[in-house]
């Protein structure tokens, strides 16, 4: 490492990295601490993990989270795929409007969006609940999915589809045999990202869940508002491991994708 030449920035960097990691380390230690008051180390135990897994609100929370994340991911992918297929052959003005709305969905403060959707449901006398949360998550997740798929589609060569069409394939067959396989890695990355967004989301879920079973992040939120307990730490660690794994998977797919598309981009020039 190049430390001595940049002593000041090295010291700050080490301090900052420690500050980023230490709080998480404390939670790991809490989750294994047999001392319920967490004041001192009372020996190691897996009791809190047992309690976390047996906690009914955690179980129902996980069920709700997986249902919502699964449904909103599927919807987001459907919206994003058809959207970017349109985008590819759209005019400049259409593209600009499409892009603006995509970015706006990501940039808008979530609390504003959540209460806006809350208003819509209240006004139309629609019931809040799992379905409302799925609708809300899909608005945001589909924007993230769109960004990834748009990037993927821009490196796909339209000549391949034209060739398939010239050879007599029906439009549906061209889509199924040429476009879709080309998009698939991008769909995987976009799907993972959409899933992670939904899995992690607090604000939209909090406003729209109504009286249905709250998803896991909302359950955690209501637990941590006033207390710090080893059981919450155990739940937190389980969630953390799952989220990091999801993100790492999405990241690996994106990196892989970048490499593969880099190669296929190089092909036409070599020919």
């Amino acid at each position, binding site marked *: *490492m*190049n430390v001595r030449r*940049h002593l000041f*920035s*090295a010291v*700050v*960097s080490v301090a*900052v*990295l420690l500050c*980023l*990691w*230490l*709080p*998480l380390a*404390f*939670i790991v230690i*809490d989750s294994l601490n047999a001392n319920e008051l967490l*004041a001192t180390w009372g020996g190691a135990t897996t009791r809190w993990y047992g309690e976390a897994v047996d906690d009914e609100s955690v179980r129902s929370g996980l069920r709700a989270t997986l249902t919502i994340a699964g449904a909103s991911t599927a919807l987001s992918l459907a*919206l*994003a795929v*058809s*959207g970017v297929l*349109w985008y590819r052959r759209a005019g400049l003005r259409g593209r600009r409007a*499409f892009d603006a*709305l995509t970015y706006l*969905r990501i940039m808008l*403060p*979530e*609390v*504003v969006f959540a*209460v*806006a*959707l*809350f*208003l*819509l449901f*209240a006004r139309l006398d629609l019931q809040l609940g799992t379905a409302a949360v799925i609708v*809300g998550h*899909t*608005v945001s997740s589909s924007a993230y999915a*769109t960004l990834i798929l748009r990037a993927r589609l821009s490196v796909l060569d339209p000549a391949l*589809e034209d060739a398939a*069409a010239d050879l007599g394939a029906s*439009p549906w067959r*061209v889509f199924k045999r040429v476009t879709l396989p080309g998009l698939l890695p991008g769909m995987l990355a976009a799907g993972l990202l959409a899933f992670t967004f939904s*899995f*992690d989301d*607090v604000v939209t879920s909090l*406003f729209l869940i109504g009286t249905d079973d709250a998803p896991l*992040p909302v359950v*955690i939120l209501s637990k*941590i*508002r006033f207390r*710090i307990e080893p059981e919450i*730490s155990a739940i*937190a660690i389980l*969630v*953390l491991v799952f*989220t990091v794994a999801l*993100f790492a998977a999405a990241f690996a797919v994106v990196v892989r994708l970048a490499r593969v598309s880099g190669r296929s981009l190089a092909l036409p020039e070599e020919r």
Partner: protein
Amino acid sequence: MKGGARALRPLLLLPTAAWVAAFFLVPLAMIVAYSFATISLITLDVSFGLSLANYRELFDPLYLSTLGRSVVLALGATAGCLVLALPLAFFISRQPPRWQRVLLVAVIVPFWSSFIVRIYAVARVIDDGGPLEDALRALSIGSGDLGLAQTRWAIGVGIVYSYLPLMVLPIYVALDRVDRSLLDAAADLGAPARRGFRRVTLPLALPGVLAGCVIVGIPALGEYVIPDVLGGGKTLMLGNVVADQFLKTGNLPFGSAVAVALLAVMAIVLIGQRLARQVVR
């Protein structure tokens, strides 16, 4: 594609367009409409119109101070992120590629952990009698009674902690692109290293700094969960005022007006950033 398929092409836009219109644009329009409506606090009936009463209520000292606090907290947290991220990003960009990757992962992985878990981790550390107080006592800085928990400082710490990687990454990318030969040239012409940093590296990293400030500042301004958990659930930031009006008080028109005010502040920030970017160029 054949003629029939081409005619159907606009249909591809339909799902996204319908979804975004129904569940994004219409709700936002409703927020604006509600912000001009009035509510009877007895029957909770909303009557629409062009009343400015909600916006006038915004100028109540209570809400003005909340607005001010939100802006100060968002600005302060952004500045805090910047002060920490700049040396870190600089340090990373000066390492050999393998170490760069290791350090970037070290910055990103905590960010990948669940948002709510990160907030919980901060609450744990800054809690009264928590590790931070212990550490300060051990180093004999201050009396050991920090009293940080449930204050606006705690909110600032929470925002900096959870948003820091969003500041580090764009600055790192900008620094990584800086042409080293420019620095060599500065050195050859007799500029000391510190001067080379100030006159060459920093200006070239400025676009990354601006991007980072927007990426951190905008969500920080509208933050709801962090003040709710770390600030003790008082009406500390605009996001909490909006949330309270909808979830507790039930004064939807006033809550909508606060939301519109939040959007207005956000728009000002974005326009400011655009102007700043032109100046930088």
